[in-house]
């Protein structure tokens, strides 16, 4: 839930990277961490299994600049993609301002992508949220692989509301920043539209 802090003049937004196992959610955050100057990013925290699969979440705070004199900080989270970690996914989705669905472009992973979108819709609904109402972008990852399906076909199968879609190859970094800018834009436009962050906000605004 977006958080406007008038005392320190900061806007904080929470963005969750969702998607099936091994689609590249963690890689997106690793690239953002590697390619952002240390002064504009915090620590990348990964709660992973001993064989480097996400167990609970990855977390990366990023400063993306000033908006009307308010420093804008994005708190990026990934969820564990493996099917049996559903409780962890629900916990991390709590209070999110926007979602990036990272799809694996390989033909063999199409069913897993479809299942992940359905799972996202179900988990949002359990929190009284509809995917149609929440800022949302689709990232088609692993575009470099020979088994990648055409982007148009993936869009047709996975798109749910004419959301902005970005092609990416996270291992090389291609498309990673574009995706982040895309979701940040959706989140901030949504905040302007609602004119009220959904969350707790320390504010020193004059009465």
């Amino acid at each position, binding site marked *: 839930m977006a958080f406007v802090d008038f005392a320190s003049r900061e806007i904080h937004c929470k963005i969750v990277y969702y998607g099936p196992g091994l689609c590249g959610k963690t890689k997106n955050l690793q690239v953002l961490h590697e390619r952002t100057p240390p002064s504009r990013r915090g620590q990348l925290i990964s709660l992973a299994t001993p064989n480097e699969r996400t167990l609970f*979440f990855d977390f990366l705070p990023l400063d993306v600049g000033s908006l009307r004199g308010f420093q804008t900080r994005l708190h990026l989270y990934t969820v564990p993609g493996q099917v049996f970690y559903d409780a962890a996914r*629900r916990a991390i989705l*709590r209070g999110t301002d926007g979602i990036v669905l990272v799809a694996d472009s390989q033909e063999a992973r199409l069913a897993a992508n479809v299942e992940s979108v359905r799972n996202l819709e179900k988990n949002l609904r359990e929190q009284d949220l509809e995917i149609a109402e929440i800022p949302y972008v689709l990232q088609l990852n692993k575009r470099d692989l020979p088994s990648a399906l055409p982007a148009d076909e993936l869009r047709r199968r996975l798109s749910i509301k004419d959301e902005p879609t970005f092609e990416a190859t996270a291992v090389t970094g291609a498309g990673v920043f574009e995706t982040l*800018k895309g979701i940040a834009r959706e989140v901030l*436009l949504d905040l302007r539209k609602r004119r*009220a962050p*959904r*969350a707790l906000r320390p*504010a020193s605004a004059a009465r």
Partner: protein
Amino acid sequence: MSPADLVLFEEDFRALHQILRRLRHESAASVVLLVDKNGQRIASVGDVEALDMTALASLTAGNVAATDGLARVLGEREFSVLLHEGEKENIHVSIVARRVILVVIFGDRTALGLVRLRVRQAAAELERAFKEITERMEREPVLASSIETLLAEITDEDIDRLFSE
């Protein structure tokens, strides 16, 4: 604005800080931190420069979320207190008013019993403070207008300029 929203003004902020400062002093803790359940830091006092407070807030909220899941498995509403004991540092985590997380970090200068006692007292004060804030918001919803104005003034160009600085 949805009824779940909460707006803290300068005086609320000062009042919360005062409660946290007193708790830190009376329990001889090194850091006291208030975090919302989504991992956002609300206020903190103590040796905050020495620690990555953003990471601490996010991990604490993750920890509480996982523990909430465990509680549901057992049919409990919540586990309201968590304790992590280290060799030198310890963390006492408690849920206040079902919406915020109170974190106390303490070392061997103090005792767990004292921390528990002081946390209980501070939690009651924090609960009262949040109740007053909620009641005021119901009486005077117009107080949020300064935030609405800020958000309404954001232009497409402002958003485009982000990332390019």
